[in-house]
């Protein structure tokens, strides 16, 4: 058993609701992630999974609980750069080329410029964008923009990669290709990944472990180990074990949605 690199202890987040009462977004999150593990978080929309990812990254503070990375408790955005965040919209700066977007996280970190550029190029190569270094975001397709987004997060060489529904805005075909690309990139970098998605099949295809969130307030409903060998490709989707797990997960989420008052309330 590899040591855990990320530990969430009793994590919760609440905000003031419209009538002044506390509104709980998620609560009682206890999760331990091994080094190099790929963990997906699935759940009905509005269950607080994206908010949790933001809390883990220190972008918003938790109301209670701790985030421990590599044995050290994290607080806010003050500490070292340990996590790379892959945004849902690519969040690329339109005035920067691909290369300069990837360089954003490397600037001013004591690296000499040519070293930083080599690193940025290396990760652009890794995500398959060699030759697109000087392109501006508007010159890239949606899939390519997400590749730059991923390269930017990887370039800071974080311990943990946090991915917030990065393929949600892509068309079905591009999404499938990006999933395969992510499998390849993950196998090459061996990063620890926390991957938030609402797509069950995507979660199973990519992950070692799938965590199901309940409806609001989000809590961990159940965890599943994905019993499929790696390397995986699209054929794994017709594997009996894949289909079984997909059905189990779907029923669970359906229950959650019903408990919340049906899908019209989503």
């Amino acid at each position, binding site marked *: 058993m590899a040591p855990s690199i990320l530990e969430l202890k009793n994590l919760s987040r609440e905000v003031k609701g419209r009538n002044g009462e506390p509104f709980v977004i998620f609560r009682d999150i206890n999760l331990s992630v091994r080094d190099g593990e790929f963990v997906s978080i699935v759940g009905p929309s509005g269950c607080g999974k994206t908010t949790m990812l933001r809390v883990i*990254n220190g*972008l918003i503070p938790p109301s209670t609980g701790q985030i421990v990375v590599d044995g050290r408790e994290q607080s806010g*955005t003050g500490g070292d750069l340990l996590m790379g*965040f892959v*945004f849902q919209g690519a969040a690329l*700066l339109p*005035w920067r080329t691909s290369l300069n977007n990837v360089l954003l996280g490397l600037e*001013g970190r004591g690296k000499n410029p040519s070293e930083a550029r080599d690193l940025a190029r290396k990760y652009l190569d890794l995500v398959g964008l060699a030759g697109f270094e000087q392109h501006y975001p*508007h010159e890239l397709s949606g899939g390519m923009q997400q590749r730059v987004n991923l390269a930017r997060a990887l370039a800071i060489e974080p311990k943990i990669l946090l991915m917030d529904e990065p393929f949600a805005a892509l068309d079905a075909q591009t999404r499938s290709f990006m999933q395969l690309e992510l499998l390849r990139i993950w196998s090459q970098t061996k990063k620890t990944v926390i991957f938030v998605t609402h797509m069950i099949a995507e979660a199973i295809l990519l992950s070692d472990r799938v965590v199901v969130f309940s409806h609001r307030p989000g809590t961990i409903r159940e965890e599943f180990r994905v019993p499929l060998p790696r390397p995986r490709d699209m054929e794994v989707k017709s594997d009996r074990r894949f289909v079984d797990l997909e059905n189990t997960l779907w029923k669970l989420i359906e229950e959650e949605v019903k408990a919340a008052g049906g899908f019209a309330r989503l």
Partner: protein
Amino acid sequence: MVKFYCGNSRAINKVLSILCGLVLWHYLATVIVADTAFLVSPLAVVSKAYEMLFLTGELYPHLFASSWVFLYGYLLSIVVGVPLGFLMAFSPAVRDYVHPWMTTLYTTPRIAFAPVLLLWLGIGAGSKVAIVFLGCVFPILINSYYGMRVVDREFVELARSLRLTRLALFRKILLPASLPFILSGLRLALGRGLTGVAIAEWFGATAGLGYLVYFAGQTLNVPVLFVGVTAFGLMGIIGFEILRKIEDLATPWKTSHPR
């Protein structure tokens, strides 16, 4: 019809538009109005401008006077408006203090201030620059403020996620993101600034295009009046072209700007 919107033919459209306007003007002046006390042909304006530029040279002092007043007022508005707009975006307190003054002064006709400013600052350059400044500063201020406010939230989260310093956030994200808004504020200010020059020079000036136009109007010297008005128009066009060049240089990621 698509080809009308491509490169060269669009430039031709502009030239055609100007030519049509000039022809219409000439026709109106010589055939319909046919009274040089009311309206003169563009040809008369051109010959008068030629005379004032190359024979008597009497246009230059007016051009220089107006240009200086405009430039001082305009640059002063940038120096004051941009940082103040940023401060408003960052600090609710500054916003609360500036906002009522901004809305009041922005919507009050500047011509109402002109006599007061003359009274306070005298008929020298100070009052004229102040009138131009009052015209220019608010569009620049409002756009700088607004540009900062509407920066994509995700960009700010990105900066936080990458643990950028506050200075880096400002320099690498907020400033470039709001630049197009600031430039559009500068464009709005251009027209208001030139109007400001005209207003300022109508009251107690001894030189300047506004003075020239006013004086020509009083003495019913229609050709000179039109030379002055045309000079204002040309200053506007030149200003717009300079701003467009700056915008092209400053925002190279944009493929095309409206021309």
